[in-house]
């Protein structure tokens, strides 16, 4: 984070932090380009590609057909042959259209070639529910990606991390999925100007507490932080860890916290069954069983496709209230 020091800081929404992150990458790396659906002329459907075409031109800001296999294949082939592409996959749900290029080519090429290929490709994609976009435009599929040896997966929860992680991902010599969240697009915070890194694979303690550890992914960090206030009112001090990176996962930070709190709750927006929370719970029990005073609990979406109706979607997405309820259960209150 040393790069971020001494830089002037201003309030910036998540969406513009993403935009700045992409711009910094294109400015500092001559072999970088961004390709994806609607990224050039239209500036991207979320607005985070605004101004890219004007600053960097057609060669480096590339509109593609609606062809996710082609787009992801472009990322594989171009990165293996000396470019540092940023591939924009408009919705995370679209990984289904290009899972072969992701899982069988991008993640494995280096290994299959005995270490003789390097794929410095960054994939930006948008996950999460909350806008009534229904079952095919709202999913959180990070567990699919984190299951792939060779792939790195990060989930920046706020504007500062979004910008810094895009820069770190593009400097990394491996394929990295940066999973953004549409519900966070308008959230503002202080973000430094210029270039800085947020390390991949390092969790961050967002608030300290002694009674239990909450490990949260992506936008669930904000729900966890909201629950902290509610818990304080009833005398419970929760420690919140923003996992930030799914693969690699920072087990050490989590275990160190549990040594202090002796209780853990894992929170994500993806469905509970087969979600990354199961893996984290298992790791906690392998690494910190002796420190636990209660079973590791999870708050996650129910095992249902993401519903359309706002009335149902509200029930579907884990909230600070459902976190408070589960915390009380964990503490046997």
């Amino acid at each position, binding site marked *: 984070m040393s790069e971020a020091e001494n830089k002037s800081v201003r309030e910036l929404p998540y969406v513009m932090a993403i935009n700045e992150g992409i711009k910094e990458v294109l400015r500092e790396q001559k*072999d970088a*380009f961004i390709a994806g659906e609607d990224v050039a002329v239209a500036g991207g459907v979320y607005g985070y590609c605004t101004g890219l075409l004007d600053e960097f031109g057609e*060669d480096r800001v590339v509109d*593609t*057909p609606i*062809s*996710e*296999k*082609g787009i*992801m*294949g*472009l*990322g*594989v*082939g*171009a*990165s*293996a*042959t*000396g*470019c540092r592409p940023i591939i924009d996959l408009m919705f995370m749900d679209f990984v289904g259209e290009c899972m*072969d*290029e992701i899982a*069988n*080519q991008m993640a494995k*090429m*280096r*290994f*299959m*070639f*005995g*270490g*003789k*290929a*390097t794929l410095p490709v960054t994939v930006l994609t948008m996950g999460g529910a909350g806008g009534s976009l229904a079952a095919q435009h709202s999913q959180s599929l990070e567990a699919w990606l984190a299951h792939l*040896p*060779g792939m*790195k997966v990060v989930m920046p929860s706020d504007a500062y991390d979004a910008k810094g992680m895009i820069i770190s991902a593009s*400097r*990394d*010599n*491996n394929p990295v999925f940066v999973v953004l969240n549409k519900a966070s697009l308008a959230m503002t915070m202080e973000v430094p100007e210029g270039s800085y890194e947020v390390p991949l694979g390092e969790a961050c303690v967002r608030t300290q507490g002694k009674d239990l550890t909450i490990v949260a992914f992506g936008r669930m960090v904000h729900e966890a932080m909201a629950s902290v206030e509610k818990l304080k009112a009833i005398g419970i001090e929760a420690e919140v860890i923003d996992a930030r990176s799914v693969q690699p996962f920072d087990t050490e930070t989590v275990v160190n916290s549990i040594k202090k709190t002796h209780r853990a709750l894992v929170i994500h927006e993806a469905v509970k069954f087969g979600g990354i929370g199961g893996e984290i719970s298992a790791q906690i029990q392998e690494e910190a069983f002796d420190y636990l005073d209660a079973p590791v609990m999870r708050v996650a979406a129910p095992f249902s496709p993401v519903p359309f109706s706002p009335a149902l979607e509200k029930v579907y997405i884990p909230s600070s209230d459902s976190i408070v309820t589960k915390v009380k259960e964990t503490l046997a209150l």
Partner: protein
Amino acid sequence: MVAKKKNAKSNLPSQKVLQELHMKMVRIRRFEERAGKMMEDGKIPGALHLYVGQEAVASGVMQHLSNKDWITSTHRGHGHLVAKGGEFKPMFAELFGRSTGYCRGKGGSMHISNMDLGMLGANGIVGGGPPIAMGAAFSNRFKKNKNVAVAFFGDGASNEGSVHEAINMASLYKLPCVFVCENNGYGEYTAQSRHQAIVDVADRASGYGMPGVVCDGMDVMAVYEAAGEAIERARKGSGPTLLECKTYRYYDHVGVRGMGLTYRTDEEVEEWKNKDAIEGFEKRLIQLGVMTKKKIENVHASVGKDIDEAIIFANESPYPMPEDLLDNVYNEET
């Protein structure tokens, strides 16, 4: 626009080129024959998809490429690597699963590759290669070099969505890319007439706004000529071509005799063998006075000797160590 048919013209390439084409084909044939035997002898684990019969395609195309040009291959990829300059020793070592193999024993037959030779891998996924070749061609254009990327794929792969997307994007961006469809008449064990309603895959080129060319894939001269035009077109920035080479694999989809499935007749196999690319070409070389019978025999003998040595090398090479497993999953360099 219907694909045009190409037959070899009369103006001959140089003697050197003719001899190199011959050498490439013989090297592939002998390599594959021995690999098949080694598999049957239990020396090679896993699945082996052999290129015997299709040698003219890889050889005719690769004659126009340097190590800086990229190719993507298929599950039937040894021939492409041999024609791109692959050496027998690290190739056999890879098939044997040894640490001296091109991929340190981690890829095997289906992922054999060599980045230094511009070979972006055989691929276990049918249709896996073309999007990668399109990406490599994009890279060439981005870096403003004059290199091309060639995607090899089969008639089976031509039905994959990934191939459609890759060809459309290559044509849209006018990338220095050539799509070589090796139509060997079968997608695994299913005849072309049972997997697509067209006869010439190259007909699809018109749907992408690019030239489609059909050539005799059993005639190395025809392939050499057609590929030369397509590659030159790509190199000078005029965009991709879909080049279909009609060919045939003598062996089964997997291995030599495969699983004994009755999906084609012995008569059909014999008919194609009568058009054998190497035998036919050798007769022409003798007629043209480019090579003598004796010289041709010497080529076969010397290639055979290289293969014997490579097999000894592979056999004596160590297996990877257990601690090598987790190497190369990630690039740890920053």
